[in-house]
């Protein structure tokens, strides 16, 4: 009897968890009006905000110049680019200095920290920012020339303190996991993040994020000891009631690439999970005024671990129902999480179709097959990363495991560095 109650309780808990996640994942498509509201509104040509764009670069001499040149093509009239390089990285420094010599809008700041990471680099540059708004990009980002004009308009029309633009992984065809990775980004930036903005609790992304300079200084910049400093910044700002606006336009997103190997994806994911765990333990989210917001915060920051848990328990539960002799009613309950999983799968397939449409990419039948077949394996990967994160956090290992990138989204395939948590 107790076994039955236990099975039923676990099944129902899993069902509600999956149902909530699905509900939030589908936020943007709830009604046509919601979908329309997730886009940038068209800029009116009037520009008032000045930008300081931070570009931390480490061993990225190969792609940095291209990124800077593209940023300089922006249509916005008032911005500066601050490239942050390490004192021990002469190659990148040389490229940055050359770019600064060509265009007065580019400046170089040298980070002299002994152990380097992204929050330390951006914090180093913060005192040098002259613009009203600080924007962060990564050295290999492809930024749309009209993005700044749109962000300017968003700041002025909404009175926002923070504007988060879309980031999208594009190279879905590279491997089975990059397909799922791309789709994760799609659902996150296209849909889920808007829900967080609406609810008043948001873990920000690592780039294409714009914060008013005074707000950022008031918050003492980024937390140099946090592995998910971007998420942490979002949590700290939204917890004290700063207004965050999210906008997603498929032609305005910052395009990126997935990690080049399964191992680097695992490392990247481990770092995020560990970062989420750190943010959870910092307890800034407790300042959120409403209980519902705190629940959302708790749930969101715990998601990686719940995911790991459910990935293991769902099949186990179904197996119990099939092979153990349980009453039909209880057996039915054990199938509930499987039902939500199936619905999620279907929506992912439709999401992949929509992704292809939005970005003008040809999604073939084999990609849909890969998406579905890869699902369980990806789940295993996520579970592995979650367990690894807990283990590392327990052992107090907080160093950055950097991931190398092959530049699959650029024309030339050259090694570069990426450390962009979403």
């Amino acid at each position: 009897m107790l076994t039955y109650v236990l099975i039923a309780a676990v099944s129902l808990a899993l069902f509600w968890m999956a149902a909530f996640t699905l509900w939030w994942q589908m936020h943007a498509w709830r009604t046509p009006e919601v979908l329309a509201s997730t886009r940038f509104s068209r800029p009116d040509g009037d520009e008032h905000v000045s930008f300081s764009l931070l570009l931390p670069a480490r061993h990225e001499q190969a792609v940095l110049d291209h990124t800077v040149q593209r940023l300089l093509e922006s249509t916005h009239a008032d911005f500066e680019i601050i490239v942050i390089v390490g004192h021990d990285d002469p190659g990148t420094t040389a490229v940055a200095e050359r770019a600064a010599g060509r265009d007065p809008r580019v400046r170089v700041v040298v980070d002299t920290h002994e152990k380097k990471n992204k929050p330390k680099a951006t914090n180093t540059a913060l005192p040098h920012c002259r613009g009203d708004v600080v924007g962060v990009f990564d050295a290999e980002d492809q930024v749309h020339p009209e993005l700044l004009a749109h962000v300017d308009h968003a700041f002025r029309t909404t009175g926002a303190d923070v504007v988060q633009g879309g980031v999208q992984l594009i190279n879905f065809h590279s491997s089975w996991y990059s397909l799922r990775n791309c789709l994760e980004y799609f659902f996150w930036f296209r849909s889920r993040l808007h829900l967080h903005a609406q609810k008043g609790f948001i873990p920000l992304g690592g780039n294409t994020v714009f914060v008013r300079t005074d707000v950022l200084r008031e918050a003492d910049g980024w937390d140099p000891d946090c592995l998910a400093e971007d998420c942490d910044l979002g949590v700290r700002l939204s917890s004290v009631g700063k207004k965050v606006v999210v906008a997603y336009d498929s032609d305005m997103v910052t395009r990126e690439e997935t990690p080049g190997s399964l191992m680097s994806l695992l490392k990247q994911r481990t770092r995020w999970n560990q970062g989420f765990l750190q943010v959870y333990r910092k307890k800034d989210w407790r300042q959120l005024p409403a209980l519902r917001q705190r629940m959302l915060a708790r749930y969101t920051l715990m998601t990686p671990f719940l995911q790991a848990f459910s990935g293991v328990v769902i099949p186990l539960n179904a197996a119990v129902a099939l092979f153990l002799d349980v009453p039909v009613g209880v057996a039915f309950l054990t199938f509930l999480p499987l039902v939500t999983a199936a619905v999620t799968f279907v929506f992912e397939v439709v999401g992949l179709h929509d992704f292809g449409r939005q970005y003008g990419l040809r999604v073939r039948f084999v990609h849909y097959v890969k998406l579905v077949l890869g699902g369980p394996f990806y789940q295993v990967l996520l579970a592995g990363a979650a367990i690894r994160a807990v283990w590392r956090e327990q052992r107090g290992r907080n160093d950055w495991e950097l991931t190398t990138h092959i530049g699959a989204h650029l024309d030339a395939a050259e090694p570069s560095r990426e450390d962009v948590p979403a």
Partner: protein
Amino acid sequence: MTSTLPAVSGAEIPAQRRPGPDSGPTGRTRPPQRLRSSRPDLLLCGVLLVAVLVVQGWNIADYPALSDDEGTYLAQAWAVQQGKGLAHYTYWYDHPPLGWIQIALLSWIPSAISPGSMTVGGMRIVMLGISAVSAVLVYVLGRRLALPRWAAGLGMVLFGISPLAVVLQREIFLDNIAVMWLLLAFCLAASPSRHLWHHFGAGLAAAAGVLTKETMLVVLPALFVTMWRHSHRDTRKFALTGAVTACTLIGLSYPLFALLKGELFPGAGHVSLVDGIKYQMSRPGSGFILDRGSGSYGVLHSWLYYDRVLPVGGLAGALLLIVTWRWSVTARALAGPALAVAVLTAVALRPDGYLPAMYIIGALPFLALVLAGGAASVAHAVLRRRRSDGERRYVTGARYALAAVLALAAGAYVVPHWYDGDRTALTADANKPYRQASHWLSTRVEHPRDTRVLVDDALWLDLVHAGYRPGTGVIWFYKADLDPAVTRTMPHGWRDLDYVVASPTVRRDAKDLPGVRDAIRHSAPVATFGTGDDRVEIRRIVTATRGGAR
């Protein structure tokens, strides 16, 4: 404060209705976003609901005559309530069980208060609730499909007060419950907010409808069309796949249930879902519906006997809407119901299909809506078509005169017919013989616990309440021949019985059931209630004199 673009002040999303491009049906009278807060709609719908409730509720227990099917569903619901499984005999996958599980839920409280009320006549009151919900949903659906207020009201009246509808909706038929679910699905599919989860809910409701009565499957394409028309281009693919997925997954729970019980595939010594489906698919046909003398023809005429306006008028309305598709906004708005009518008609026109009397129940709401839509279309053509601002007054006057004449002519035809039909429904007592037989068997038999009697299901629960042993004491007459679990308890056939209650149903079907036939042959009437073909005879088995008296 945080919010999504381009919120003015961190308001919840619904507050900032940014108009997506419109692709919903454009009606002349756009229904209000929230019917709930529209006073004229509430008033009209409320008044009509009271009328429907009075006409359907008054005399509900005594008319129409109790049917064996009603008794079966209620007895199965009783079995669910008692925790005896899904049926009062072995459940054999004849229909998905969701229908009588709902009846069991709805009748739970009344039967807990007074167990004796769990009889067919008494529990018809449950159907009144179902009818009320369905009638309101017809109105809501009419409004959501852009019908003007009066036409939506007309649809509700046609659906709720047509004598044919009154007769069929009073009875405890699974189809009535399934129709309610389907109507809910249509209403959600046509939701003005075009919410993803409304469409998802439509899929769930449709699945519930199909699991209540599997014949609703054929209406699903019409539901899909409705959803397609009412969803927005940008969110359509998510909405439709969501709905289809929801419907499929919930629908799969039925085979899953069979699988978990080990009864999906045929095997020795147990029933199975596959066998049940095979049986339903191979039911002997009742002939072509337009073929005089066929069973289907008889069924058709039994419908037309009660009302011609709704079936014939509805069909004509559907034709009108399909023909005027190109020009009429109403026709396009009502594409879903018109398609439902077309599909149901096509299925009824199968050359040799099985056509049960309750078949038309699934079509009633769509016939009503389509007829109301046809009326709205005609009214629009008469009153508004090619009308300019500078139209001469006498032309306008003529338009209104013509409209009035048409309305009066329709009223002059419909009202007397309906008056007669509904008066019968409100006053006739068709079930006196059954009540008397029930009373006789409850009071005149000395030891009901040790008495074995063959009855049809309309009386089965009455006798259970009177103290007969359910199943093998009071025996549903089919089971005496068809259920091995029952025949095992009757090694000497009719000699093991004490009484046969020869109701019209028992007499009709006894010719195919040798055991029942023998029991009737070897018995003599001890009490007869009613006269002619509708009489109910209580016959005592005569074991001494072979051959019996008949």
